[in-house]
């Protein structure tokens, strides 16, 4: 038995483990730098963020190691039950949870807080993986295609009820995985991307100007296609559809979104709309990162990210500390490490024989990617300010534990790939 475990360990994907460890260490150093005061408090002092994070890291290592020891087939067998329980916990949080930063999504134990929604990304991925795996030999009917979306919608809705829009949006990351599995067509995904593009464009420009441009394009296309009545009709139809969309986006933005949501999008277009609120974060974040230059100011030498220039500098805006202290070189290195890490997970996932294992791998990569893209994009002013953490780097136990569990579950699945079918 013991022999077997050691033999398995030889099969572990060392690249993923190594990159994981690098990211966790970089994360802790950044939190240390962000929270650093000249009066040194000792790295285990749990009144500091870095002290607390160190405890979270040890907990993560422990749980990660434990995931390597358990029988992963059980995870597959009980995937639905695990999902159901996690949904019950989300409901419980709505009633008994603690409210932090206006989101009622936390359970608090003394000095430590846990955010159950972070773990539901994993449980939803498990349930979908099991579902797709059990339907792998069937033709994909509409009903079968719909089920994974239901699995995503339930936690999405519950997390929205907790008033945590950022975390709720993360479930959308699994669309990439569904695309890979053929549950969502590429055309649909491109449509979604185009819709997002038009959405931003609508906020930047007057909706009637955009509709005008669309009309111009439609007229030109129709003239080119004038010999084919059917295609002309299609172009006209598409034009009407897009115009309605553009108009409704504008309407939604003006009349439906809550002021703080609207604000976060507006400052992206013009940071000076709300320079002390949402715009403040963005401005300060860009100043901090920009002041880093090529090589940065050096470890602990940052001045902008210390204390309250950049708010939430050890959680959502941790990338500022890296940008300031390590400059473009360090930021680029981190981004490259992240992307190599993601690609490696995709490549290992593609080697799996079991659809279940592959989907867990893809889900992990897609969720990590979403967090990575939104978090860094936000700090450098490319994405609206949405409060989701940078995996492994940001201060906070829930996200670290949840992603560690995902990574190590996938590593274990990979170690057992010959047994998983």
């Amino acid at each position: 038995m013991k022999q077997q475990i050691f033999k398995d360990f030889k099969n572990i994907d060392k690249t993923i483990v190594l990159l994981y460890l690098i990211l966790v260490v970089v994360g802790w150093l950044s939190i240390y730098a962000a929270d650093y005061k000249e009066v040194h408090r000792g790295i285990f002092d749990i009144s500091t963020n870095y002290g607390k994070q160190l405890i979270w890291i040890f907990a993560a290592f422990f749980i990660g190691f434990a995931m390597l020891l358990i029988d992963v087939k059980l995870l597959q067998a009980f995937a639905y039950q695990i999902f159901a329980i996690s949904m019950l916990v989300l409901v419980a949080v709505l009633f008994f949870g603690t409210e932090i930063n206006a989101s009622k999504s936390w359970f608090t134990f003394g000095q430590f807080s846990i955010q159950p929604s972070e773990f539901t990304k994993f449980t939803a991925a498990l349930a979908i993986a099991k579902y797709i795996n059990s339907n792998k030999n069937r033709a994909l009917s509409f009903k079968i295609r719909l089920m994974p979306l239901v699995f995503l919608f339930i936690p999405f809705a519950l997390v929205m009820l907790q008033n945590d829009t950022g975390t709720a949006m993360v479930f959308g990351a699994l669309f990439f995985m569904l695309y890979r599995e053929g549950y969502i067509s590429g055309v649909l995904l491109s449509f979604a991307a185009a819709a997002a593009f038009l959405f931003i464009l609508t906020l930047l420009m007057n909706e009637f100007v955009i509709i005008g441009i669309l009309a111009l394009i439609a007229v030109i296309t129709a003239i080119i296609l004038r010999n084919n009545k059917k295609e002309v009709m299609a172009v006209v139809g598409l034009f009407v559809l897009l115009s309605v969309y553009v108009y409704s986006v504008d309407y939604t933005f003006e009349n439906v979104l809550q002021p703080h949501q609207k604000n976060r999008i507006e400052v992206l277009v013009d940071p000076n709309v709300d320079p002390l609120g949402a715009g403040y974060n963005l401005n300060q974040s860009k100043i901090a990162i920009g002041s880093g230059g090529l090589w940065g100011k050096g470890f602990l030498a940052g001045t902008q990210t210390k204390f309250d220039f950049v708010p939430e500098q050890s959680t959502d805006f941790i990338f500022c500390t890296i940008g300031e202290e390590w400059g473009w070189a360090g930021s680029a290195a981190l981004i490259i490490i992240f992307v190599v890490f993601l690609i490696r997970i995709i490549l290992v996932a593609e080697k799996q024989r079991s659809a279940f294992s592959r989907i867990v791998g893809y889900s992990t990569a897609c969720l990590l990617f979403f967090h990575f893209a939104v978090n860094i994009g936000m700090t450098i002013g490319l994405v609206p300010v949405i409060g989701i953490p940078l995996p492994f780097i940001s201060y906070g136990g829930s996200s670290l534990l949840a992603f560690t569990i995902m990574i190590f579950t996938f590593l274990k699945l990979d170690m057992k790939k010959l047994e998983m079918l």
Partner: protein
Amino acid sequence: MSNQFNVNVFDYRKKIIISVFVLTALIFLIQLFHIQLLDHSYKASASSNITRHITKYPARGLIYDRNQNLLVYNDPYYDLMVTPGQVANIDTLEFCELLGIDKETFIRRITSAREFAVHLPSVFEKQLSNEEYAVLKEVLYKYPGFFVQPRTLRRYSKPVAAHIFGYVAEVDSETVRLDPYYRPRDYIGISGLEKSYETVLRGSKGLRIITVDALGRDMGSFKDGRYDVAAKPGTDLYLSLDAELQEYGEKLMQNKRGSIVAIEPSTGEILALVTSPSYDPNLLVGRKRSQNFRSLQRDTLRPLFNRALMAHYPPGSVFKVISGLIGLHEGVVSTNSKYSCPGFYRAGGITVQCRYHPSPVDIYGTIKHSCNTASSIIFRSTIEKPGFSNIQESFNNWRSHVSSFGLGKRFNSDLPYELPGIIATSDYYDNIYGTRGWRALTILSLGIGQGEIGTTPIQLANVAASIANNGYYYTPHIVKAVGSIDNPIEKHSEKNYTSIDSTHFAVMKKAMIQVAEEGTARFSRIPDIQVAGKTGTVQNPHGENHSAYIAYGPADDPQIAVCVIIENAGYGSTWAAPTASLIIEKYLTGEVKRTWHENRILNANFLKPFPEED
């Protein structure tokens, strides 16, 4: 074949996903390249140029009274700030002499600032006087790392209405943690209007980002001020308060415990809200604030306690107007009813004392002579009125009439820290006597406003306003307009109807006019102004009775409704009624001609029998 096809499709999708990852990374690298390398304005290295953030504190909104007299304004002052990381090569000795501190103090302050934050400014010396500032300003360039931060302090043009305004102090760490607007050392409204209108009054902070060199010298705005934010001054408040009346009321209440509340019946606007003893609001400002606050807290006269909104007293005979109105509404008494009073009322082993007055009395006489016998009979008939299946039901009916006057609950308008007062519930009596253990006689004292009933001065003033309005009131409130006098708030413009039919108020009004003209309050008549009122002498088991009076005037066109309560002063007719009449005279005519009354009240001292405890 199909397998081969699938493999290709999946390979293609995998490549698409990886491309999305790589493309995103590339976009990030380019954007970072732009802000970190191409745009030089962000570039600042720790050794040469760094930016300094200077918070620009807005002045808090001003507070005016109903006649647009300025009551609360701001005075500038200066804090000496230090950024420990920038302090270098200074002549410590000279600097200490300048500030009049010793070297140990200097070192201690620098150390604690360093502990808070090396690269962030901390306060070195709070609230420099203008003279200190003038001296320092000239030589500050010699001390890199030190700079002066302008702030403002509250000032009050009259030392009145301290409880209404409340006060402002530095924000506590809990609030800083919960509300991202506040940073340590910001000011926040702690009580009164400063608290309830905090977000209106505070305005919004501004920010100036400057570049400073290694010596901390100002090198000008960062990026030409592109990231600077102008401070937005706070919004002004216009109160319904009449500052002159308030001041006069506070003066009349000197050396007395108690309260005066005056309301404009046609709007619910509070004209005066006097609690006594009070304190000078200027005491809770500036360097001595916490010291003064502690000594106010220790004061046995409890000047921090807002009696107008928080003290509850049994209403005593004042309550007979409500008992009478309920009796009229329920039909147990009419203008034809007559009650004979032998000087007491005795029933079922219970005796309620009255005093000598002409007998028999009708409903008008009941109020005019404040007859306990008639009031007790009316109350008893109301509770024992046929048609209710049990005492609980009939009591609850009575109780809901009482509540409809705003008693036993908070108004929840813009008044800070109101208390609801007390009206016992039927459950309360059930618990004490058992469900079948009590009857009208058990709770007879309620009919004359004694027993399990507690009302606050503002509630009683509102009762007077409700009667003046023939049965409805506007929620009493103190803020008339926000931002500009032409921008009145509409929130309290809804009529709250009492459950008493409006036709009965004419009877009670006539009775109350008799009280003021020829009844218990006849000594407090105001020449040429007819007033309606009701006196009360509140039994106080702990000492001398409390003197109470509610009134409104002029009787035919009510413009002011008043409640006066003076603790331990004795009869309502002797002290509260003349005080109220002075307030009404002052408000309606602008001056008081009855100086004899005025001097009598001003010279009265009801604090003496209670020597200060050690």
